[in-house]
């Protein structure tokens, strides 16, 4: 018997953080305009010591205004989606749950469409509209998903799926009747798009909200291990099931809302990264949560780098890349786990 130790958690996180670092360096280096690693180091060093004006304008713009914000956003969004997915999988006791199954992304997309239609000039109207749409959906689905006063997994799942369908139908209706060309950008957003960095004043909010959300779920990770074996069983082992379900629901939905508002609905990450991490490191949520966060960051940065470079100079939306890579990976994991 090898119980989980804090050491193992920390070492695994260190390993994944190392991989993430390497992936980020590669992402900074690769792109339509190639930059050598030495140039990269020099650029980073110059900025670090405050002599950014000595950099050729190209490098400064490409590395710091284009690539770096994209990589950071991708990492944060990947972490948020993967932890949300892992959380939902425990809450719904369903391995097929992903962050969008409860309708958050559909509500968010509707908010974004309405914002694009009615306030296209305001820069942050889209992420704000998306976030508001997400929050409203989360609240609505919560009230629909209750049974006898507390969240019930089956009822919640049904409520979420129905809400998602309904909201998607509204979006489709709007997209055909509102023949505005500004909605062209929606297609990108719906597939996931990291090319629009967060407004500077939103960046800190995003980071803090992310840490709070992941932290909140992490505090319930021991309870989640029990919850996935059954609600009654967890209750008999002393878990406050009602509270844990609420915390996970709010935190996971909030993380999804954050991610979708910033970058649209990047698919497959929230579903597959937790499974891949389970495959590599086991199902214990005390390790799975941080592993999923780091694994998700790696996955999205990797996917985005590929999306940017595979058919350069055209940029694919990152969601297209995760879909292309996601399906075969899913099949592989499925077959391996069946053995």
């Amino acid at each position, binding site marked *: 018997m090898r119980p989980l130790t804090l050491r193992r958690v920390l070492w695994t996180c260190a390993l994944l953080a190392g991989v993430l670092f390497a992936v980020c360096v590669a992402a900074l280096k690769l792109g339509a305009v190639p930059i050598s690693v030495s140039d990269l180091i020099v650029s980073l060093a110059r900025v670090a010591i405050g002599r950014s004006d000595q950099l050729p304008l190209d490098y400064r713009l490409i590395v710091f205004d284009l690539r770096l914000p994209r990589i950071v956003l991708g990492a944060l969004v990947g972490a948020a989606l993967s932890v949300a997915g892992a959380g939902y999988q425990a809450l719904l006791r369903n391995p097929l749950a992903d962050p969008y199954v409860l309708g958050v992304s559909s509500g968010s997309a509707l908010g974004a469409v309405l914002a694009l239609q009615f306030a296209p000039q305001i820069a942050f109207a889209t992420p704000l509209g998306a976030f508001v749409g997400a929050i409203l959906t989360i609240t609505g689905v919560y009230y629909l998903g209750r049974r006898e006063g507390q969240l019930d997994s089956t009822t919640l799942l049904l409520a979420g799926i129905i809400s998602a369908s309904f909201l998607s139908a509204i979006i489709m209706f709007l997209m055909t009747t509102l023949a505005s060309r500004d909605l062209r950008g929606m297609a990108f957003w719906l597939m996931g798009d990291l090319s629009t960095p967060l407004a500077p004043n939103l960046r800190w909010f995003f980071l803090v909200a992310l840490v709070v959300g992941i932290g909140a779920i992490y505090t319930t990770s021991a309870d989640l291990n029990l919850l996935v074996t059954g609600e009654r069983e967890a209750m008999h082992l002393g878990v406050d099931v009602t509270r844990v379900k609420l915390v996970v629901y709010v935190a996971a939905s909030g993380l999804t809302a954050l991610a979708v508002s910033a970058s649209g609905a990047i698919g497959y990450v929230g579903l597959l990264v937790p499974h891949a991490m389970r495959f590599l490191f086991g*199902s214990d949520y*005390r390790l799975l949560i941080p592993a999923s966060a780091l694994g998700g960051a790696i996955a999205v940065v990797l996917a985005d780098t590929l999306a940017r470079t595979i058919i350069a100079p055209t940029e694919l939306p990152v969601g297209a890349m995760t879909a292309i890579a996601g399906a075969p990976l899913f099949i592989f994991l499925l077959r391996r786990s069946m053995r």
Partner: protein
Amino acid sequence: MSAAGTSATGSHEAHSRLADTPRLAVEQASYAYSPTRRQIPTFTLGATSFQARQRELVAILGPNASGKSTLLQLIAGSLAPLSGRVLLDGIEIGSLDARTRAQRIAVVQQHAPLVFPAIAGEFVLQGRHPYGRALHLANEEDVTLAQNALAQVGAEHLADRRMDQLSGGEKQRIILARALAQQPLLLLLDEPTLHLDIGAQVELLERLRRLAEENRYTVIVVTHELALAAEFADQVVLLHRGKCLRVGTPAAVYQRELLEQVFEAPLEIEAGPAGRPRVSLRSRQADIARPDSADNRTRG
């Protein structure tokens, strides 16, 4: 009526056992259940009382839908009684917080298949959850206790196996081990013999008896298996359609007419070794051959 039976309200025998205060006392506990708030409660458990001591194995016996699981949930503290109370070592179970309750009461239920892969050893370690804090990471003591629990169910060799690769009986031993790891005072099992063959059923009940004896548990088993209850229980609580009909030793409770009425099957009760009744199906052929038997008179 046998002298060993106890009535529902307590008796002289209970008072005379001062040195042996009952670990579990169920006093007139009842429950009503309604599917929605507006409907009239449909399912009830009428006021039920019994007591159980350390090292005792109690069978809650009855056919399907007789309220057995409800009574078990009342004892486990996951339901609050509508009236009456349930006391563990003199303290009302409802007044305990969830953590303390989990340290004193362990429940083994019908288990749904696990959605995510789990290792048996880690599963048993989950039984230590009520004793941990924050991330509930297992310390040495936890690991030792979990290993002991596995040993007590004869499953140490399964510690590193995946749960979905175990047989039904092996899985159940792991689940039982998790309950043992909680180091409870009270061990509750809800129809543990349902999917087991007769050999496994007997093995389980013998193990439960042994555990009750060695670890001074009070074991409560919900079952509808007449023969097993007769053979292994110290006390039987007989339920029928939400009403507690009889509480007592198997010999006291197993009266043929009573049991036939409750289980709606023709039965034959005989005295067995060690004062335990032996139950068997009465053959219909024999009935036809004896036209003036007591049964025919009852059925008329």
